[in-house]
């Protein structure tokens, strides 16, 4: 696993597209030319990302240039720019439910409801209750932790961990993005600065939604910068 401070790169090139193989041959043709046409780092063209240091905190909902983080279909030279999760404030409801559920047996003894059962059944019911609480917490945490939105310099990837048995991964190329809008409404979203960013694409799935993500305006700004860079790359004929 790479451990440098630079954005992580995948070494797996088995999924490289035909256009990428052309790129490889182009690279080998002239090292000097490649230097000139090199892939720029995000800090070179993004004012939004320049404000952030590479994130080492794995539990952040807004992790800029996350270190030691890779995703399955990441291509060589593809920089992971931003990893997003739902804002932590949106997780408060399940945390409160879990806390209340966890303290219920300290006030109400389940054995007192079932006096006709042997005493060890009361203990078993209490342990079963706590097991249920643990399962609920674990499942809710996993749903938050693995439900991520990734922005690279080439693509936007939406990993939906909807439930334990259903997940969905969608990605779209930055060059296919047609429109980006952010929606934030209500007191909570305004106070904690989170909202939904909708990315309209020309791909098979026309819309990718980043739900309840922190700093939605900043994300829209970043998309604009990425789109400009993408246009610039096309104009200058730089490698992708």
């Amino acid at each position, binding site marked *: 696993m790479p451990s440098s401070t630079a954005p992580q790169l995948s070494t797996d090139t088995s999924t490289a597209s035909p256009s990428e193989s052309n790129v490889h041959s182009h690279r080998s043709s002239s090292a000097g030319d490649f230097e000139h046409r090199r892939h720029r780092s995000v800090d070179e063209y993004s004012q939004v990302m320049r404000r952030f240091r590479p994130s080492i905190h794995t539990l952040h909902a807004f992790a800029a240039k996350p270190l030691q*983080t890779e995703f399955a279909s990441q291509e060589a030279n593809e920089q992971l720019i931003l990893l997003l999760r739902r804002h932590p404030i949106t997780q408060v409801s399940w945390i409160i439910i879990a806390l209340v559920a966890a303290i219920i047996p300290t006030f109400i003894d389940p054995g007192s409801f079932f006096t006709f059962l042997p005493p060890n059944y009361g203990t078993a019911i209490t342990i079963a209750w706590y097991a249920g609480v643990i399962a609920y917490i674990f499942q809710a945490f996993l749903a938050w932790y693995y439900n991520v939105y990734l922005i690279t310099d080439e693509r936007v990837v939406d990993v939906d961990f909807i439930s334990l048995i259903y997940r969905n991964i969608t990605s779209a190329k930055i060059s296919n993005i047609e429109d980006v809008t952010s929606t934030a409404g209500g007191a909570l979203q305004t106070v904690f600065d989170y909202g939904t960013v909708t990315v309209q694409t020309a791909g098979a799935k026309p819309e990718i939604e980043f739900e309840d993500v922190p700093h939605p305006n900043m994300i829209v700004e970043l998309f604009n910068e990425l789109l400009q860079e993408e246009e610039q790359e096309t104009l200058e004929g730089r490698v992708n």
Partner: protein
Amino acid sequence: MQQSTGYPSTIPEITEAFLSPESLMTTVFFIGLLLAAILYVVFAIVIVRQVKIMNKTISTPLGPVIQLLAWLHLVFALVLAGGIFFIL
């Protein structure tokens, strides 16, 4: 005179031991708890599998820790199911 073994031996004793409302409720609770424990083990196995898949999908520094927690959770579920089956 035959010494008592502690187990029901006569028909009324057997009827009392197995068909009394208390015994039936105990049996119902035992089966219910056992089924819940089995479902919990299945849930824990699904979590282990899903965490493994998700760690392949997105690799983070916390991934191995979550994987370990998922395995510990499965061990806990198995111990719980064993406890219900053998102790109750």
